[in-house]
């Protein structure tokens, strides 16, 4: 099968590629020809005109919860991958807070098997400790061999400083990151950010310092051990500043931010909508401003969604009792283009770094190249299209989003990977 993508802009900062009115010919999933004015007879394959669109290396969401095994009613590997494709991603890294946790080679292999026929590549992040309990190291080497791309006790920080130190030391053997949900356990447990809003709403609060303390601890231990720490879903101004200073000192620390943490503040909680309840919580304007600074100067390496599907009945609860988290895969790019690209905070090249290049660098994965002979791993963008979020059309099994009916500008209109294409709402083999 052949596929000709015509008249598109093509950008890949990883290979200094930036072309306009460019054509790409794909055969059996491999890029066969690139250039201008390529032609394909209709009996040889399909030609898609992509005038005004942009082809970029396949986007990667390095923080999603696929809920399988354990809560297949909320999401499965397959439905999560469908949502990822619909959101413009060709790969995701899935977090280990499943039931059972991803703490054995068998679970890693199971997840990889569930994803094996999909367009979207799934890279499991394994638990850093057995059962994510913070007591005993997980079999990290074996997990890595099975396909794990990082280690995390996600949902909580690695419990003790001594275990984190040991985990970082052990990870030196394979240069994979320890991904940390930074929250001091004894200061955790609130339902929203601590601010004047938590006082006004009467909700138990989580102060920024709960995050800051663990970010500081992790940076110091990364420096001490020489291991790599990746700060998941950074949300506080102090944390951004600490990561910036650590990077200046050459400490191996990277950071991601979620679209909701650069889009919303805790003012959104005023409706007691449980879809504004997440951990880390939505913070204040000051924090959002610091995050935007961090995105601009490269302190924050990438954008990841923390896609957290929850059933309707779980979210339809009293605010304090509802679980944390929102789905993010199918709104991520729309929010990034609306809030960052069109507000001239980040250029498209910078967004490609944060969505395609940096996540793979952090997880030690190959960066897709758009050149003859390479596997076609592509995301097709329309940065100008105006659309309205409709949660009833999500391919995710869950609907917990605060962005329902939000008007956004820009999205992915298709993805290509593993000899498959998702375009105009349909998966096809190419």
């Amino acid at each position, binding site marked *: 099968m052949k596929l000709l993508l015509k008249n598109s802009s093509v950008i890949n900062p990883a290979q200094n590629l930036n072309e306009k009115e460019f054509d790409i010919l794909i055969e059996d999933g491999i890029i066969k020809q690139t250039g201008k004015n390529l032609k394909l007879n209709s009996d040889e394959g399909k030609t898609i005109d992509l005038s005004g669109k942009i082809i970029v290396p396949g986007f990667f969401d390095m923080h999603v919860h696929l809920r399988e095994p354990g809560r297949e009613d909320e999401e499965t590997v397959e439905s999560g991958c469908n949502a990822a494709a619909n959101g413009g991603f060709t790969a995701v890294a899935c977090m280990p807070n499943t039931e059972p946790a991803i703490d054995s080679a068998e679970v890693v292999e199971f997840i990889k098997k569930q994803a094996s026929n999909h367009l979207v590549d799934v890279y499991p992040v394994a638990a850093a400790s057995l059962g994510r309990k913070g007591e005993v190291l997980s079999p990290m080497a074996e997990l890595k061999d099975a396909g794990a791309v990082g280690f995390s006790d996600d949902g909580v920080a690695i419990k003790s400083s001594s275990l984190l130190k040991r985990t970082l030391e052990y990870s030196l053997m394979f240069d994979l990151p320890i991904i940390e949900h930074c929250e001091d356990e004894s200061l955790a447990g609130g339902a929203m950010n601590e601010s*004047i809003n938590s006082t*006004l709403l*009467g909700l138990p609060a989580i102060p920024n310092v709960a995050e800051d303390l663990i970010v500081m601890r992790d940076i110091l231990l990364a420096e001490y051990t020489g291991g790599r720490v990746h700060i998941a879903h950074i949300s506080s101004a102090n944390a951004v500043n600490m990561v910036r200073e650590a990077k200046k000192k050459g400490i191996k620390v990277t950071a991601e931010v979620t679209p909701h943490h650069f889009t919303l503040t805790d003012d959104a909680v005023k409706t007691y909508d449980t879809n504004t309840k997440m951990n880390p919580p939505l913070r204040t304007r000051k924090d959002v401003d610091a995050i935007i600074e961090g995105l601009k100067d490269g302190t924050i390496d990438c954008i990841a969604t923390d896609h957290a599907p929850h059933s309707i009945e779980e979210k339809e609860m*009293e*605010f304090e009792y509802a679980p944390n988290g929102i789905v993010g895969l199918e709104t991520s790019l729309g929010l990034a283009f609306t809030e960052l690209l069109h507000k001239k905070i980040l250029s498209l090249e910078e967004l490609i770094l944060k969505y395609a290049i940096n996540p793979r660098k952090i997880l030690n994965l190959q960066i897709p190249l758009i050149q003859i002979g390479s596997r076609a791993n592509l995301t097709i963008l329309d940065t100008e299209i105006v659309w309205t979020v409709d949660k009833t059309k999500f391919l995710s099994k869950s609907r917990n989003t605060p962005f329902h009916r939000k008007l956004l500008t820009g999205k992915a209109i298709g993805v290509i990977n593993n000899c498959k294409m998702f375009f105009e709402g349909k998966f096809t083999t190419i």
Partner: protein
Amino acid sequence: MSLSSRHLLGLQGVPKEDIQLILDTATTFREVLERPIKRVPTLQGKTIVNLFYESSTRTRISFELAEKRLSADAINFAVSTSSVNKGESLKDTVRNIEAMKVDMVVIRHSAAGTPLMLTKLCDANIINAGDGIHEHPTQALLDMYSIREKLGRLEGLKVCIVGDIAHSRVALSNIFGLKTMGAKVSVCGPSTMIPKYIQELGVDVIYNIDEAIQESDVLNVLRIQLERKAREYFPSIREYVKYFGITSERLERNKKDILILHPGPINRGVELSSDVADGPYQIILQQVTNGVAVRMAVLYLLGTLN
């Protein structure tokens, strides 16, 4: 005159005219409570459910009495005797109650925001009888009524709320209501029990109880919730009593004339010494009586709104 909202969820954002109207209407009902027959037919035919997810004696009885004195049909739905223990969601419970054609729901719940959630789940008028550590508007209204009854005004008065401000729905509702009515509000308590950003609400923070007494016309002394987590916020009851307990000796040392309120139930010997709790400055039992009149006013004004 009528209220600007069909629910009473809290006092944040409630206009002065509404508070004034509730307090003035309560004056009329206060007079009814002195009659030999303490019942008016105003809400005859209306059905009101008291939906209590948290144990409460005085607030529930006060509401129930207010409902009966307005001739409404009052139904109590308490957590221990309901299907909630079987794990029914709030949504299902409320929809069931609504299916029974009730006009108003009085709700007490341990989670903040639940009354607002109810307004989206059913058509009844919703009255917040205390939600988590958020608001308890009828308590603040009866406090304001009692202060006004005793001192003739609210405007310009200096009111200090004493105790665990951070975990008190009474404090927040009092702050909103009193500020709207033109009073000058301060809070006093151990610094661990004062919310970090409270000054943004335009209240002064005082850590010294003697200073609070000297500065204030009214002290609204909150109950220290010994059964809750409150105990973790100060070293010992002994230390709390020594530095924040209101005693006759302390009152006399600082000032002669002050009005003391307490939402009850009192921890005698903790936030108030026994002689203060029974003494000449307090109006604790008047608050209880006024509570019925104020709740009658709220129910009447909401129940007769179109």
